[in-house]
Each structure stands twice: as C-alpha cells, then as structure tokens.
C-alpha cells in the first residue's frame, strides 16, 4: 500500500493549505514572510503614552500615532530606512559588543536548540543564530563591502519593510534570557542584539504598550503601575494588617525616612500584585525580626526597570532614580528585593551608566557584620544574599515545618542566575526554611535555567498562546518533579516570574503554585511575642499536625 501522504490528509481533514497539508515553509528563511494575526503580536504603544515619551526623549520614539501590526501601512516616517540605518551606524560605533556580535558568528549551531521559544514553536527564526541573522543580514548588506557587492550570496540584504516586520515579530519573541549565550563558543549575547533591535524599532515608532506604559508610569510616578505615593504607603499598611491578623505582630514600617541605614527597594508588584504581596509580607517580617534600621521609598517605589527592554537612555534614567533617592535620604547602602531585571541592570550596566555610587558605603550587615564586597561598587545587596548571611550566622529563629504544606522546587530566574550568578544563596535559604526541596533536572536549572517565557515586557495577556509555547520547556521540567516527588510549589526570586509562572502553571501544571522565597522565609520566621500561627501568609491552611 502506498505511503500515507499529506495529500490524503488534505482531502480528508484539512481543506485549506496548512502545516499538515504540506505548507510548512520549505523556502529560504529570507523568503518566508511574517504574518501578524491576533495572538502572535503585542499591542502597540498607546498614542497618548507615546506622546509622553516623545516629550521625555525627543527623537527616540518616532511619531506617536494609532497603528496596528496587522495593517499594510504602519504609518512609518517617510525616511524610516534612513533613520534605522543611521541608528544602526551610531550604535555600531557606540557599542563595541554590538559590532563584534554582528561580525563574529560562525553559525556553528550550538545555540540553535537552546531557545525556549524555538523549543516551544519549532520556528527557525526563533533559533538564536537566525534571530541575530535577521539583523546581521542587514548589517552585511548595508555596512560591508562584500555584502554590498555579493548581496544574498553572502547572506546580505537591504532594509525593507518586510525586514522591519520580521524584526518586530522576532525581537518581541525573545525574552533576553541569555540561555543561548551560555552555549555560544564566542559568547555572543543575543539579548544585546535584541536590545539593539528594539532600540532601532523605537526610532521609527514601532513599539509595544506593555513596555511603554510601565516605562511611562515609572518615569512619572515612580513605579510600573502608576501608583501614587499615598496608595503605595496605604497598601503596605494593608499588608501589615494582614501580618497582624496572622502573627499578632504589629509592624509599622517607615517611608522616605532620612537617615535610615538602609533603603529597601523592590518591584512594585510585591506591594500590589498577587502573589508578590506575600513576598512583601515576608520582607516586612524579616526586617522586624532583626530590627533593621531601614526605610521604604515612595519615590524609588519600583525595582523593575522596563527601560532595559526599551532603550539605554530609559534604562539609565530609571536606574538613576534608585541612587538619587539613596543620596537624598542619606542611607548607607541599598537592599534590593526579589526582582529579576533590576539586578541585571545593577549588576551589568549600572556601574558604567550611573556608577560608581561613591556617596554610599560598602554594604555591611548591621546584624552579622558581614561586608558584602561583591557589592563594593553598586552598594546594593540582594535580599537572598542578605538572608543567607543571617541564617549562616544563626540570627534567624526558623521553623521550617510551617512550610510543610509545600513541597518546593526552585526556578532560577534568568536575570539573577545567568545575569549575576546568584545560584547558591537562594538554595541555602530555601533548605533552611522548607522541609522538602527537590531540584529540577540539571539541564533546566542554574546557568542552564529555562526562562518563564514572558520576560522583557512580554507578560501581556494578548499573546497568551505564545507565552505558553515559550514557557513549555520550563513547565515541562516542573511537571517532572511534580510527578516524581509531588512538588506543589515553584519558588523563585523575580516579580515577573511570580506573575508569569503563575499563568504558566495554571495552564501546564495546575497543581503547582508559585511563590517568592521571602514568603517562605516569612512563614518560617518565629517572631518574638507572636501568636500561634494557624495559617500561612496567604491565609492558606498549614499542614496537619503543625504547631507553628
């Protein structure tokens, strides 16, 4: 009998040309056009938001307008190609890494199967090598002699509207997680190529609202959500009320207090969004437990920095706000909460953008005396480093059995693990606050960790299908430990992760909840004078037989 061929399927099941009927693109990638349809792109920035940005940084955000990626006309400036090419030239001169990454790839393929978006979609343009090639081809075509002369023979092409569409599609299908760069023999950082791609798109007014609105809000009111100081303060007050209900301990944190020893900065999602608020309750309990002389700030009320996903100018400005506030308040150093990209910015870019922060002191734990030499320049210590040091010195009274209702696995957030090498500290904390902790498989954790699939401002709901595809490798590894060990909790130290992994788990592994590390610390902390705990910080029931 003849082979089952796709034409058999075509007749019987699917009438229209489709993947199953043999319509998988077989032509060269340059000839496969990008098609935007609902669900595969993020909504563009609102006109009003873009008008605001254009006032902040004239010339960097194109023309504010209403447009849709699905339209044939994106209402680009007449000379948009010239703007892009000039922007590229300027960046090739300014950023040496960009120039090197454009030149040095040998297409060995080591990165090809390392991207979570490729692993979830099979789309070749999601292979990091090809994602970079989207821009390299233009670099060759427009900036190299060989490319100008030989064109497509050497993988060169001109900057056309089709190319621009490709950039918008695929530089917003990269979460800048840098997993591919771990496997690249040259250390090519695709994240920085994506950053350049996005900067160039901004120049001609091509952007996404989920990045632009939080950036506008952060620039204006200090945090992604646009919350004003009194609201910020009030919400922390509500969290303190909940803490009092659960523990009987009344906490009265201070705000904008000059002369405090430490300024504490965390993502605003910790103050307002579920499940981040339980993490914030953990911070409040921890600081109360050790009697830390610290203050919150309603000005530096955001650790997150969506400028990193926008352009270097905004990244610098939003990062500077934290240091300006530290200076204004006269604190000695900054303690940072559970955030992902805040740490990437602080660890990799802050020093040359806004540093060194000479007006602050090298951080020293007032409880243990430990000097954090790793933060000698940025003067900013991660909450996990700080907590691990406290535990190491026996300064915390902990009862891990209060987390006995949780069987935990650990998600290394891309920015803190690959971006700053924070691998052991959170694990050390975790082992001290939960009775049961199981690692996911080795090739899905630590430096090789899989992204949540929704970082870099892709945590917007209009691309939920895409996010589920991108998060499949992470969810697949969680499924394994859930099946094998009965893991029911996925812990992490990143606000975006806490939000996006929650959605990811609800789709792939509904039996697994997501929480921050400090929430688990808060559950385990035995506070002086507390009442018997009947619930955890999210008012969930504790394991049977637990005395608290």
């Amino acid at each position: 009998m003849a082979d089952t061929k796709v034409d058999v399927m075509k007749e019987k099941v699917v009438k229209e040309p489709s993947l199953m009927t043999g319509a998988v693109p077989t032509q060269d990638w340059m000839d496969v056009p990008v098609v935007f349809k609902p669900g595969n792109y993020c909504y563009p920035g609102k006109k009003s938001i873009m008008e605001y940005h254009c006032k902040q940084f004239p010339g960097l955000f194109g023309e504010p307008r209403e447009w849709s990626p699905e339209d044939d006309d994106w209402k680009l400036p007449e000379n948009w190609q010239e703007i892009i090419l000039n922007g590229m030239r300027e960046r090739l001169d300014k950023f040496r890494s960009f120039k090197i990454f454009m030149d040095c790839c040998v297409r060995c393929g080591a990165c090809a199967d390392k991207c979570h978006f490729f692993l979830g979609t099979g789309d070749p343009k999601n292979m990091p090598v090809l994602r970079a090639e989207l821009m390299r081809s233009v670099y060759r075509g427009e900036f190299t002699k060989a490319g100008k002369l030989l064109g497509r023979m050497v993988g060169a092409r001109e900057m056309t509207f089709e190319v621009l569409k490709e950039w918008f599609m695929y530089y917003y299908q990269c979460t800048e997680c840098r997993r591919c760069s771990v496997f690249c023999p040259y250390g090519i950082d695709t994240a920085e190529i994506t950053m350049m791609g996005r900067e160039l798109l901004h120049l001609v007014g091509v952007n996404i609202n989920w990045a632009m609105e939080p950036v506008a809000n952060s620039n204006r009111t200090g945090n992604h959500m646009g919350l004003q100081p009194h609201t910020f303060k009030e919400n922390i007050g509500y969290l303190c009320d909940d803490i009092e209900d659960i523990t009987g301990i009344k906490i009265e944190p201070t705000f904008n207090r000059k002369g405090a020893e430490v300024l504490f900065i965390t993502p605003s999602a910790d103050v307002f969004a579920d499940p981040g608020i339980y993490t914030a309750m953990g911070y409040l309990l921890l600081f109360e437990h050790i009697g830390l002389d610290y203050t919150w700030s309603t000005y530096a009320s955001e650790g997150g920095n969506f400028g990193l996903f926008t352009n270097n100018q905004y990244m610098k400005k939003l990062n500077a706000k934290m240091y300006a506030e530290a200076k204004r308040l006269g604190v000695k150093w900054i303690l940072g909460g559970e955030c992902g990209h805040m740490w990437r910015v602080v660890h990799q870019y802050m020093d040359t953008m806004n540093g060194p922060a000479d007006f602050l002191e090298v951080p020293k734990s007032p409880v243990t005396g430990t000097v954090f030499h790793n933060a000698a320049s940025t003067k900013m210590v991660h909450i996990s480093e700080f907590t691990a040091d406290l535990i190491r010195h026996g300064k915390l009274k902990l009862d891990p059995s209060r987390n006995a209702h949780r069987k935990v696995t650990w998600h290394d957030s891309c920015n803190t693990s690959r971006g700053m090498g924070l691998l052991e500290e959170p694990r050390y904390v975790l082992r001290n606050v939960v009775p049961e902790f199981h690692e996911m498989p080795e090739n899905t954790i630590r430096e090789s960790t899989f992204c949540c699939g929704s970082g870099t401002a892709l945590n917007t709901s209009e691309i939920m299908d895409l996010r589920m595809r991108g998060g499949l490798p992470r969810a697949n590894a969680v499924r394994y430990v859930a099946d094998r060990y009965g893991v029911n909790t996925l812990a992490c130290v990143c606000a975006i992760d806490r939000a996006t992994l929650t959605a990811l788990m609800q789709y792939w592994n509904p039996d697994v909840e997501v929480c921050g590390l400090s929430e688990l610390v808060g559950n385990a902390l035995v506070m002086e004078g507390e009442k018997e705990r009947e619930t955890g910080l999210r008012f969930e029931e504790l394991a049977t037989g637990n005395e608290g």
Partner: protein
Amino acid sequence: MNIEKVLDQKKTDILNAWIKQVLGTYSADGARIFSNERDRFANPVGHNVRAGLTEIYEALVADQTAPVTGEASFKLVQVRAVQEFSPSEALSFIFLLKELVRREAGAELDHAALERIDRAVDRMALQLFDHYMACRERLFRVRLEEIERNRFLVTDGGCPSRFLRNRGNTATPAGSADAGPDA
C-alpha cells in the same frame, strides 16, 4: 487474526512512522531537532509527541473499545493546542493512524478488524477533541484570571503633579495621606 497481536507486532514500524509524520508538521529545522534530541527536557515537543502517540497506540492495542486513560495523550494535545495550528491541524494526526495501520498491517487484518480499528480511532479523535477544548478553555481562564490579578497594571493614572495642579496651589503634598484619590 488477533488484532491485538498484529498491532503489537507492528508497533515499532507503525509508531515510528507515525511519530515521524507528526514531527513533520513542524518546520524542517524543528522536525530535525525534535526528532534527534532524545533528552526529554531539552526537547519537550519531541518528548510529548513521542509519549502521547505511544500511549494512544498502546491503548489501541490493549482494547479497541476503551478510551485512552493516560496523561501523555492529554499533554500532546495540550502542546498542540497552543501552537500555531488550526484546531483541525492540531488534531488531524490521529487519523494518520488509520492509514498507517493499513499500510503496515493491512495484509494481515480482515475488513472487520480494520473497521473495528477505524471506529476506535474515530472515538479517540472525539476524545482528543474534548481534550483540545478543555485546553483552550483552560487557556482563556488563565488569561482572564491574569487580567483580574493585574488589574492594577491597567492604569491610565495621571501624574501627581498634574493632580496637584488641578487642585490648585493649596493642595497637600503627594506623599501625604490626604492627597486624595488617584487622579
């Protein structure tokens, strides 16, 4: 001829061909990598396709009248339900099984046996359709719940300075408790 015995004997041939065809619904690069990489964590699509199809085939061998009960077939549909397939594209793989059984074992099965297998495949198709809809509905629930959780993010709040300007110069500083509702 015993259906179970024939299907069991042909298991490797049919299943391998089936897996190859289903992985062929991805791009050439996707199909190549999803076929070759055997680490289940480095290749979740390949793993789920393999495990799902194996489970379905084994269910067919065991009993042509019972539904598929395992998790793997659900996982396979769950993966395809969020990839860029239309519903028919996502699920049409099940019908390939009819053709493959005929190709590999047609000579050893009589008409009644083939009809019995066809009916089983049709029933499984309906079952997979239920899985598919359950996944899509779950996805929309996830989306809805996220919007509810993120309602604070959906803001068009004005800036405090504008708020103060609108209230005139007598307004209290933005940080004080009586600065008023969000502008």
